[in-house]
């Protein structure tokens, strides 16, 4: 997976063109990981508070 995109200018020199769009799915996966991670943490926290005889988080 590339981090950057490169191109060649009129003189044949390699120049930086931008960030690699290989990272687009990574950014999406990171967002998804935050959501799933929080959902799991939230579910475990709710289960823990029920085990301790407390009210689960309202949802």
């Amino acid at each position: 997976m590339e981090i950057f995109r490169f191109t060649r200018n009129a003189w044949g020199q390699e120049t930086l063109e931008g960030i690699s769009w290989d990272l687009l799915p990574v950014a999406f996966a990171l967002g998804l990981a935050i959501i799933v991670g929080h959902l799991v943490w939230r579910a475990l926290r709710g289960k823990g508070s029920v085990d301790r005889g407390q009210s689960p988080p309202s949802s």
Partner: protein
Amino acid sequence: MPPIRRDGDSPLITRHAPIDRVFHWITALAVLLLMASAFLPILGLKFSWVPLHWITGVVLTAAVLFHLVRASFFKRLKCMWIGTRDFRDASAGRRAAKYTLAQKLMHAAMGTAVLVATVTGVIMLAKVDTPLWKRDPYMLDGSTWGVVYVLHGAAALVILTLTMAHIYFSLLPEKRAYLRAMIGGKMTRAAAAEFHDPNRWSGQRKDDPRENHK
């Protein structure tokens, strides 16, 4: 954490002024349009994305400038500042003032990413022919353009991740009062007291000495 009470007979307090809500939703729409016009062509959906992207970018830039002026001169910057007290309060389970640590961190991260995307986007407008100006791709040399494009792309990817998280958290049932407040401006005193210390954020106007008190 005690369950959220949704007592409808609680007095309502103001969380967001109408102008701030208009700013938020204009920014939200602009960011969604910018992400769609940037990422959909990469994913294979071909359309003439450049006009939509730069025009929406100009709208977002105007909104960001408006917010910077309003936040700097007409609101209390301190209420969004992240200090050691925020971390101490969060770790001790104490309630926050107007904004929780998580809200401040999200604002700082999203604000930084949008600022980077906006500044680099304004520079990149030099590469677009519009009715208002002619393109000048030689304003910067090739390698400098590369750095500008990298920063713009990196900021866009960060905004994608943060937007997903922001929308998810705004839809959580226990945070629904914040979403309602961003739509209607108000929240019940009881819902506010769940996460905010009434002695540090009263929900009154900013000339109230208790408002945003650290």
